[in-house]
């Protein structure tokens, strides 16, 4: 059955194949089941599959959501305690919420431009998103100073701790998104594609997915802090 391959240098040309039997390359190398990398190979030896990257980003988001779900439950439980004092939502957080919503819009604009092939426009929208992201972080930090000015500190009480903690942890994850934006910018500059490739679009889509999730996550945290006392 299987012929021993004793070294990796020799590419198999003819002779018995591992697995035996004829192969049926279907369209795009896909067979009736499985993803069958039996068709065209790219320079890395396998077909580019956008699905791989999209699935992975959803998987990453599942983990992120679980952590924030756990922290949200902790917040709800601890804020229901008798000793909790209500904390006024810093005005800055309203502003930052608006900013991050805008940044999601600008990212969508960027994607649209990219799909139309307008790479310069795409780059500009990405830069705008990035700046809005940084503005968001700045607003968050200012919001912290507002809290401290009101006498609400990190270690005052679990309820107040969460105002700092949620924004902090979310901010750290957002920095990940900002790094993703930098990656998209660098990628475009270095690759200098004449025609926008599927890989470039997938990269943008995947980072956008993460970015929108961070947006949605902040909305959730903001509303939670606002509504649940």
């Amino acid at each position: 059955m299987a012929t021993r391959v004793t070294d990796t240098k020799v590419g198999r040309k003819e002779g018995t194949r591992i697995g035996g039997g004829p192969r049926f390359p279907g369209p795009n190398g896909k067979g009736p089941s499985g993803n069958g990398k039996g068709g065209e190979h790219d320079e890395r030896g396998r077909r580019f599959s956008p699905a791989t990257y999209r699935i992975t980003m959803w998987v990453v988001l599942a983990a992120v959501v679980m952590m924030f779900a756990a922290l949200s439950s902790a917040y709800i439980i601890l804020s229901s305690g008798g000793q909790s004092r209500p904390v006024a939502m810093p005005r800055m957080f309203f502003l930052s919420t608006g900013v991050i919503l805008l940044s999601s819009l600008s990212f969508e604009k960027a994607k649209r431009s990219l799909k139309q092939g307008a790479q310069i426009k795409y780059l500009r929208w990405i830069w705008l998103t990035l700046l809005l992201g940084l503005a968001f972080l700045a607003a968050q930090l200012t919001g912290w100073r507002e809290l401290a000015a009101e006498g609400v500190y990190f270690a005052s009480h679990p309820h107040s701790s969460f105002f700092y903690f949620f924004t902090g942890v979310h901010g750290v994850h957002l920095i990940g998104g900002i790094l993703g934006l930098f990656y998209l910018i660098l990628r475009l500059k270095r690759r200098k594609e004449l025609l926008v490739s599927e890989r470039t679009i997938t990269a943008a889509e995947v980072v956008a997915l993460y970015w929108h999730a961070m947006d949605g996550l902040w909305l959730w945290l903001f509303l939670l802090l606002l509504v649940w006392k």
Partner: protein
Amino acid sequence: MAVEAHESVHRHEPPKGFIRKYIFSLDHKVIGIQYILLALIAVVVGMAMSLLMRLNLSWPGTSWPVLETLFPGGAPGGVMNPEFYLSLVTMHGTMMVFFVLTTAPQGGFGNYFLPIQIGAEDMAFPFLNMMSFWVTFVGFVVLLSAIFFSGAESTIGPIGGWTGYAPLSALGQIAGPGQGMGMNLWVISIAIFCVGSLLGALNFITTLLNMRTRGMSLMRMPLTCWAWFTTAVLALLSFPVLLGGGILLLLDRVAHTSFFIPAGLYVSGVLSGTQESFPLHTGGSPILWQHLFWFFGHPEVYIAILPGMGATSHILSTFARKPVFGYRAMVFAIFAIGLLGFFVWGHHMFISGMSPYSAMTFSILTLSIGVPSAVKTFNWLGTLWGGKIRFTTPMLFALGFVSLFVAGGITGLVLGQTSLDLPMHDTYFVLAHFHLVMGVASIFGMFAATYFWFPKMFGRFMNEPLGKIHFWITFVGVYCIFVPMHTMGMVGMPRRFAQFTEYEFLKTLHPLVMFVSIAAIITILAQLLFYANLVWSLFRGRRAEDNPWEATTLEWTTATPPPHDNFAGLLPTVYRGPYEFAVPGAPNDYVMQTEPGSEVTSGDGHEGHRH
């Protein structure tokens, strides 16, 4: 076999240079071996700790001179003090649960064999895969460092148990020895481990969903793959919760927050908020820590056992020369265990002070999870029934898994009932239960996997007689160690007691305590046989062919050891299910997954036209 000329094959050359090839390797096979090596080291540390614990419990007050040299603070005059004992308890649990049971079965064997069994060249993200191992390794180093940084406190690490209940774990040094720096390092180590685990999980999930070769439908995957996949999903959804909780705990310890520390505490003569060593706390909930921890902790125990179940199904079928009985039911059972595993965490907390109504709900759900586990056991027996059983060493360990899983799992029926947990909670009955399932059955799964796959990984068999001796001593030994613990728990022996000398009602248990310790010493020593076998076989084992066990799945179709890109550039095509043994009319009593042909029905009768 059709000979075909086709377009030139694209190969992936292995990297050059020792560092790229063996240290910072992107090859899932090397990474798998690295995880296994890590587990092999961690388990020795864990076993040494349990040996010391048994010595202390059986011969309390004895002076062990070697301990005085190694741990002058923890064992002054060679006599272990209570905090030293408790730090052994804590580090043993942490080491074993995280760095043995959550590394080797999934990160070790899963990493090595998942891509090959589904016909892929590597994991989806080799770089992330490498990072997952090295992050885990850093976590291990940080955990070990807790041993050294706690020296002044005369412990070898924190003393909160591997469960680290707050406020004991959250208060810091004021709560006692072993609760200072060592505890900080412990939390950090676990947080790092969470990250490593998550990186691994996302690789497994994406690879399995997206990189199966042609013909490898989901229902044609070996059960090992289903187990690894479900384990990865469990890890993905549970580790973030532990990470979140761990960060909150660390903040309580270093940033003076009060997530888990309520107001008005008076610890070691100091009232909360009156001294710098004990700042003001208010509003925290100790039970919250338990919820967060066990929401992770319960799926974690299924993470520890599911890969072993997968390997057992795989190995039982191979050596019974018979298809797995009820493949589909097995898949559903794996799902059911995984899913239900998220809804039963409260059974660790019945008497914690949480709502008794919640306790009841958790209790009923807990006993429900026994159903898919029982179904799996029946199917294993069904696989063996009517078989033609070959008693090789891997088969012995797989059979041992079945026996021990039943022994350990069945007492879940007792502990899962709220009423019966009232006397049983935190006694040796619990210890017996979880050691039998995790510390023994799961380990047997790994032993079985090692003996089974060693020939494929290294091209040589492990020494069979030595393996069999290893099995016999270990199998009988673990029964002798852990079955008596049930009765100890019934008499009322509490967990985490450094000594049993203080209570009259425990005095009758002395003969059992001694029996258990003797059995433990013998069994631990017997593991040296396993290590010796590993080393010896690497160099002198009998050479193995590509498919020495006459098995059917994809790893046995490729070279031994598999080349860097697993299939020498020619990805296999799968025509059948994974356990086609004893097929009537076939020339051999096994038909490989890659064997084409239409007369013989495929594994699930669907010829790959699903998924």
